[in-house]
């Protein structure tokens, strides 16, 4: 049987190379994300760091861990999705040949053994190539995290020998998962199909497709509904996963949708007719090409839109939740000095301290790092409309849950460590509303914190001018204490910093994964064109020129890309609804910031990639004189 595989390989190598390539990159990405994740999670905090530096280090590596975990999740998803759809498509493309094997007596078991054997072989090749490629990916991903300042220079996802086992497991497991369904179907190919060369004789909308499509559709809708109750971080994850589910659902159902769109294409002349006919006849092919486009567009668009929308919502929320005219960035509790200045109506000084909260006791202690804000309750309530719950701090040695909400809820008593001082257990007596843009996790008063901690810590002071104040004199006096900006400028600068982080986060999570999905697209186009030389030859013998055949193929690929973009947009639309609901719940204002530039870039890039690939594939498929291709039936 292997001889048959070998011979088939010689003729259909693009199919096999494509399949092995998808395994290779999938293995590389999963391996690399896993190594980076483990290295970030086990990164030791350097000894002898000052509390603030230590806090910054911990925050950076925590973010790096979160991002790597997300990257790992996306990589694993993409590996499963792209490898299984590639394997299934490759088997579908070989259906005529498989029917012929059935005709000369291959039983179901033999068919399955043949395909599973091939898949294992491809998986081994792909994994063997994927492991070294993974090392390069590790270097790249580690470099990204270093570049973003989340981990120190010299950080690298460290090699661990057990990863070999994981990578082999991923490569072979994902390939087997991909081929098993396809092999079962191939076992059921009817031998008579070999005698009817009417192209795509198999039903494309299989039961598996229906079940997967409807299941993921339901899952996606459920996640959209759940998003608003997920809170700032959970909501984003739910919304992103909603788009992911919808993308899977729509790619499973795409054979139903491709013909609908094909009917909308204005047909003119024989070239257009050929393209539309090919779209209708090759529904399986169109669906296979559209699938990675849908997933790529769905994921990228959803992720980008969720990030930009929550950032925009956070900025708007911050504007609403900040009264006053100026912000002073300084060191230590400068509140007294500021309120004493003539022309200052009120001032709220907020000292920022690194925070560690702990729950439980004995061996069972859980710790969480975050940020504490030491405030004057009355001034804070004035400076931040909507956060009047802070007044509960007047109760003495107590804490109030802050807008970041990462240190527990009212009713909890938590161990509090700020800077280098252990404040012991403090009851959380109230909480201000969660903010979508995050913020401090715990609010404290100066009474609870040693003065020495406060003196060295960074602080910001929101200042309101009196109606009769001399603005310039106040500005000059404040400038002596620290850096002054207007409230709008201060919020704008803060938002800009968040946006930079957002872009970085997006690049880390989606960068390599997006590239992988793009390779999946290229692969599907190549695999789709592999068995078509005979079809092209027939078209040319019917009088079309090579150029016209090429134009028809380009038109067809543009149509399929359009379908992919539309459906991907639809999948992302689920997360648009989710983010609207999330922002409405959390900030009272439904916010959607659609990244049009990114959409344009993505659409343009995809049209270009599919056009170039299908042009090259068609050109090479029409290289031989048409007559030479008609003799061989398979």
């Amino acid at each position: 049987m292997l001889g048959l595989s070998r011979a088939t390989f010689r003729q259909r190598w693009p199919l096999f190379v494509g399949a092995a390539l998808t395994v290779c990159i999938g293995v590389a990405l999963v391996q690399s994300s896993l190594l980076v994740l483990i290295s970030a999670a086990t990164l030791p905090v350097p000894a002898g760091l000052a509390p603030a530096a230590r806090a910054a280090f911990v925050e950076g590596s925590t973010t790096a861990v979160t991002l790597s975990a997300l990257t790992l999740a996306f990589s694993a998803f993409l590996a499963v999705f792209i490898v299984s759809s590639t394997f299934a498509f490759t088997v579908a493309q070989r259906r005529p040949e498989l029917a012929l094997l059935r005709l000369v007596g291959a039983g179901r078991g033999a068919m399955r053994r043949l395909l599973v054997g091939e898949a294992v072989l491809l998986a081994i090749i792909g994994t063997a190539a994927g492991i070294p490629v993974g090392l390069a990916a590790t270097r790249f991903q580690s470099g990204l995290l270093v570049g973003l300042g989340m981990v120190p220079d010299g950080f690298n996802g460290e090699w661990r020998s057990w990863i070999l086992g994981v990578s082999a497991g991923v490569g072979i497991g994902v390939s087997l998962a991909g081929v098993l369904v396809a092999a079962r179907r191939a076992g059921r190919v009817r031998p008579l199909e070999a005698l009817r060369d009417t192209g795509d004789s198999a039903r494309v909308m299989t039961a598996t497709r229906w079940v997967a499509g409807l299941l993921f559709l339901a899952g996606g809708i459920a996640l959209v509904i759940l998003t608003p109750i997920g809170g700032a971080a959970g909501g984003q994850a739910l919304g992103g996963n909603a788009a992911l589910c919808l993308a899977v659902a729509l790619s499973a159902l795409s054979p139903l949708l491709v013909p609908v769109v094909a009917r909308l294409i204005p047909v003119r002349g024989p070239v257009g007719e050929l393209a539309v006919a090919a779209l209708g006849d090759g529904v399986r092919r169109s669906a296979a090409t559209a699938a990675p486009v849908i997933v790529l567009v769905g994921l990228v668009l959803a992720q980008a839109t969720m990030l930009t929308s929550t950032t925009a919502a956070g900025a708007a929320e911050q504007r609403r939740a900040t009264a006053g005219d100026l912000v002073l960035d300084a060191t230590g509790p400068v509140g007294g000095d500021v309120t004493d200045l003539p022309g200052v109506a009120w001032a709220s000084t907020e000292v920022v301290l690194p925070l560690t909260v702990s729950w439980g006791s004995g061996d069972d202690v859980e710790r969480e790092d975050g940020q504490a804000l030491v405030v004057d309750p009355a001034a804070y309530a004035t400076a931040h409309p909507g956060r009047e719950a802070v007044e509960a701090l007047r109760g003495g040695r107590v804490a109030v849950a802050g807008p970041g909400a990462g240190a527990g809820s009212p009713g909890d008593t938590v161990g509090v460590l700020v800077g280098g001082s252990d404040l012991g257990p403090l009851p959380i007596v109230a909480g201000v509303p969660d903010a979508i843009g995050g913020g401090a996790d715990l609010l404290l008063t100066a009474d609870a914190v040693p003065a020495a901690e406060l003196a060295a810590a960074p602080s910001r002071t929101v200042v309101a001018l009196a109606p009769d104040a001399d603005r310039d004199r106040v500005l000059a006096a404040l400038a002596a204490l620290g850096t002054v900006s207007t409230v709008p400028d201060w919020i704008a600068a803060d938002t800009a910093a968040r946006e930079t982080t957002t872009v970085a986060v997006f690049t880390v999570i989606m960068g390599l994964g997006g590239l992988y999905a793009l390779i999946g697209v290229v692969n599907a186009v190549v695999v789709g064109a592999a068995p078509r030389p005979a079809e092209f030859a027939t078209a040319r013998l019917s009088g079309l020129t090579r150029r016209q055949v090429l134009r028809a193929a380009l038109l067809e690929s543009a149509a399929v890309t359009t379908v992919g973009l539309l459906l991907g947009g639809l999948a992302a639309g689920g997360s648009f609804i989710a983010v609207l609901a999330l922002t409405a719940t959390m900030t009272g204002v439904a916010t959607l910031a659609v990244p049009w530039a990114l959409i344009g870039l993505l659409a343009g890039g995809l049209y270009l990639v599919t056009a170039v690939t299908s042009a090259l594939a068609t050109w090479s498929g029409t290289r031989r004189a048409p007559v030479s291709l008609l003799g061989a039936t398979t």
Partner: protein
Amino acid sequence: MVPVTTTTFAGSFPGTAPGTAAAVALHGVTRTYGRGPTAVRAVDGVDLEFPRGAWTAVMGPSGSGKSTLLHCAAGLERVDGGRVRLGDTDITAASDDELAALRRERIGFVFQGYHLIGALTAEQNVALPLRLAGRRPPRAEVRAALSMVGLGDRARHRPRELSGGQQQRVAIARAMVTRPEVLFADEPTGALDSASARTVLDLLAAMAARGQTIVMVTHDPAAAARAGAVVFLRDGRVADRLVGASAHDVADRLVRLEA
């Protein structure tokens, strides 16, 4: 319609006791395509026995159900009614794996369109059924099958490097390499020029002379005349049959049938 029956037709041929020794027997076989008003009854209650060791031709107008009959007889198509026997085996309700084993071991096929695997050489194509049966065929056995069809020197050629007639001969070698009980051929010369067709028919004749059972659908009266007996189908039913007729007689009968 002019009655054209020359000998009484009782579902079997002279010299064959009904129900025994038939290589393939169909009893009341019916096959309908589609449902409702568009349903086509491609084979309609056919009783037929193809005797062991005989070469039988099946003729009839286009769409009369010849291919469907052949597919039913070979277990490629399920029947809606009736029974199909191959030798002593009732294959009417055989499982998929049993049918696959039949195709590997007991029956061979030749079709108008050759249907060779393009990626494999002639030799590999011929060896395929044996390898699917789990055997590692000796090269000599495969070469012998190719030599029998006169292509001993083309073993390493791929189908696209062979002429149509040569490809059909490779297909015959592939069908015969398992020494099947019955060889089914659906218009094996349909796509060939007359010289190549004659070569193929000579091959079949030589095989028949050695006692090979052959069931062959054809449109060509000359081809049919080389078979020992001819069965005529019309509208899915057996309309007539001839034994030992000349090409002229066969053509004559066909014209009357199509009238």
